[in-house]
């Protein structure tokens, strides 16, 4: 009995210690592209703090992590641009000091006021964006074969294929392919989308997350990655020049990620400094070319910090055209979201 009490005391002690230590640390809940030293180290050195990073995939995962934490545990959140209103309404994010942030140098499409500004308060800022579209191996498939997206769920798919395992963008893409703008998806559209998805699954050899998708296309396991884009291919083109990506004629889905500060952060000033660091041209360049995945920085000024090869891999100069062709991520309400997830579960189990 005594042993247990003592052990519990020890455990409690450890917890207290870790919490006390947290005073000099910044806790950020991020995507995997924020973990490179190139991005984090300069900030740590400048402010003499330790940045603790917890990676997650998907807003749901972030929400469960936050729910399973104590208030004040977190300082910085990186989240899907379209999910900012959702987390703001859940009271998770606090307002940002707009004047300190480089709004003026963002790509105009990345300001996204409808997402980031709620009741006149700005809660987050875009930091990185890209496209969920079609990646392919140009040695095996020609770009013409892929210009019509619907071919991928027809009876004769142009090549072996993998599908990226995230329901929002992939279902958004399929909707685009069916002629439904992502903003207009309703419950009534789901049967048609589901039917196309099932055909897609029949044609696909696997459905996987970032790295398994990357692996599949990089190793020649598949020739086409549905839902891929520059974030899959750009980092690999140095080794595999045949890897390419395009936006089909029906269009594609644009994703963006935003960064904000927790409402209950114990060190909001430091957290804001971190946001500023990530949005600075240096931070943006490092983020754009992170080892986990590459994608366009939200801050146009980052271009000055990047090499020509890097910019070429990201198609820096074609962004205007691409931004025109791509719809924003779908923003389903709770009911539609649940229904979409059910469709996706059926898709996975198919």
């Amino acid at each position, binding site marked *: 009995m005594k042993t247990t009490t003592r052990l519990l005391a020890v455990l409690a002690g450890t917890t207290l210690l870790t919490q006390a230590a947290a005073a000099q640390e910044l806790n950020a809940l991020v995507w995997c592209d924020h973990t490179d030293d190139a991005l984090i180290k300069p900030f740590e050195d400048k402010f003499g703090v330790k940045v603790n990073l917890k990676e997650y995939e998907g807003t749901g995962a972030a929400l469960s992590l936050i729910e399973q934490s104590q208030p004040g545990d977190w300082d910085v959140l990186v989240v899907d641009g379209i999910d900012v209103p959702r987390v703001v309404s859940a009271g998770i994010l606090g307002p940002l000091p707009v004047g300190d942030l480089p709004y003026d140098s963002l790509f105009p499409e990345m300001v996204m006021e409808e997402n980031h500004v709620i009741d006149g308060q700005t809660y987050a800022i875009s930091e990185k964006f890209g496209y969920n579209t079609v990646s392919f191996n140009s040695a095996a498939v020609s770009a013409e074969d892929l210009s019509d997206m619907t071919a991928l769920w027809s009876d004769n798919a142009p090549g072996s294929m993998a599908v990226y395992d995230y329901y929002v963008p992939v279902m958004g893409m399929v909707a685009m392919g069916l002629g439904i703008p992502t903003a207009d998806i309703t419950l009534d559209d789901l049967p048609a989308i589901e039917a196309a998805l099932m055909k897609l699954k029949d044609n696909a050899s696997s459905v996987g997350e*970032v*790295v398994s998708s990357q*692996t599949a296309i990089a190793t020649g396991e598949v020739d086409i990655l549905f839902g891929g884009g520059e974030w899959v291919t750009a980092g690999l083109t140095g080794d595999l020049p045949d890897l390419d990506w395009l936006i089909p004629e029906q269009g594609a889905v644009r994703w963006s990620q935003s960064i904000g500060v927790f409402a209950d952060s114990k060190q909001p000033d430091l957290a804001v400094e971190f946001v500023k660091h990530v949005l600075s041209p240096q931070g943006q360049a490092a983020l754009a070319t992170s080892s986990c995945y590459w994608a366009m920085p939200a801050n146009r000024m980052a271009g000055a910090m990047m090499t020509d090869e890097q910019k070429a891999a990201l198609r820096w100069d074609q962004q205007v055209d691409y931004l025109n062709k791509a719809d924003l991520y779908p923003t389903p309400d709770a009911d539609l979201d649940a229904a979409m997830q059910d469709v996706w579960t059926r898709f996975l189990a198919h």
Partner: protein
Amino acid sequence: MMRFAACATYMALLYGFIFLPVGVLALFSFQDGRFPIPPFQGFSLRWHAEVLGDADLIAALLNSLMVAFASSAMAVTLGFLAARAVATGRLPRAKAISAALTAPLSVSYLVIGLGLLASFNLMGQSLSLATVAVGHIVINTPLCFAICAAAIGPAQQSAERAARDLGASELRVMWLVTAPMILPALLAAFLLSVTFSWDEFIIAFLLSRFDVTLPVEIWSLLRSGLNPKTNAVGSLVFMLSAIAVLGVELATMRRK
């Protein structure tokens, strides 16, 4: 002769199956290129060097060791004490208690991890390596209990009785008589426990926050970029463990 040939063939085939992934893993950890897939492009130690230079991985390795040793020590202690209680033959409802103590053995780690996650959340306990250790103690205590219970037999009972008769206190009986007598079992329980904790992923994944154990770090490595570094970690971990296991094996053999 036929029989010998059949046995040898079967052993060769099965050992081939067992070693196939490990061999491939090790081979491509020396791949001199970005992709850990055939063809083998030449020999390079680059990925091994990268692993050894990766502070996060090294930290995770140390975390894993810490969690494994701390949780196993606790699990062995709990299991040993409970096994002794059952062995006295005086424990009321000994059968029910034994069943309760071994119950976690048949529960999936995922379920144990989820349950603890929800409970810690409810208790307001934030996650850390300590919570991972708690989970590992839950899964390893039944194992240690079972191993110790099997080792405590009539020989220990009578030796304990003799020690008590000669005036030893309960604590000293345990420390001077029972524990040394079943030392091999205690050691085996501890090592098995360390192995399980060392290798455990899902509980560590669910119950950790910033400081993570090696399997969790490897998991995120796996999802953050395709390269032979994962192979290198795997082979290094393998070599490290194999050396440790061999060392223990040799040490016990010499003592015999």
